[in-house]
């Protein structure tokens, strides 16, 4: 990854033009060729430096459900439960964290009601309680990284 790649990422985390030749607009702003920009984006996606190039949706405004959930798991059952939880396509991401509550995952469902029933399914499959912590107020969402 070179300085041009970093410029591309820094600039495209802020937004992407919605017009007929958006890549050309971005390339001009960055002072590179459109073909070069497209090639670099393709490569960074292939190398998985970029997770996606596209929209980040507001789940609730799309009519969906979204929640952060945690579980308290003994080490011996950890792997089994990770597999059971991740088998659900509604699990958007899942991290181990250092705490009594040691597994944290995000559920994104097509309807708000589905969160509740999915939690019950996960509890029944795994035998462990799920702590459900849906967002109540949003103070800031930036999630941008300077490179």
């Amino acid at each position, binding site marked *: 990854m070179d300085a041009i790649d970093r410029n591309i990422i820094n600039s495209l*985390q802020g937004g992407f033009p919605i017009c007929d030749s958006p890549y050309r607009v971005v390339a001009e702003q960055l002072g590179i060729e459109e073909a070069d920009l497209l090639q670099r984006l393709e490569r960074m996606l292939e190398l998985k430096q970029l*997770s996606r*190039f596209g929209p*980040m949706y507001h789940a609730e405004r799309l009519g969906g459900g979204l929640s952060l959930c945690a579980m308290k798991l003994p080490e011996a059952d950890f792997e089994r439960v990770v597999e059971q939880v*991740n088998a659900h396509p509604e699990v958007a991401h899942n991290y*181990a964290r250092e*705490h009594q509550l040691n597994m944290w*995952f995000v559920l994104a469902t097509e309807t708000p009601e589905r969160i509740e029933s999915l939690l019950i399914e996960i509890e029944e499959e795994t035998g462990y309680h799920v702590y459900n912590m849906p967002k*109540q107020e949003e103070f*800031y969402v930036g999630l941008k990284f300077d490179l």
Partner: protein
Amino acid sequence: MELTEQDYQLVAAIQGGLPLVEHPYAEVGEQIGLTESEVISRIDEMKQSGIIKRLGVIVRHHELGYVANAMVVWNIPDEKLDFIGRQLGLQPCITLCYERPRRLPEWPYNLFSMVHGTSQDGVIQRISAMIDDLGLQGIDYQVLFSGRRFKQRGARYQ
């Protein structure tokens, strides 16, 4: 903004990413039977109304060197939550800041924030500096660094 059946098709068509071609919106339109200008105006409207929070690159922060990813959780007295939540949200090192419910007795924390950095030490230093700057010394908090990542992808819509 009311979403039509066609909007949901558009949502699904671009959720995996925009095509890397000169006229990406035209290509998306071809897939779902819309013209380029229809796609552009619908995406623009979804952006304006906040259904699309952001359009652009979503990085895999871990792969880009942001390997220390801390969820910093705070037990804030209810009457101060709004004020402190807003203040925390303004800090440059905070990438997300939400109120979530406490789950007593195991979980007394009601304010969740994320701090990403290139090292755990660096992240801890920034958190300490922030506590000093905002006068949060009396507030109970915890830093939960992430361990293994088992899954990372966006939400999927049909």
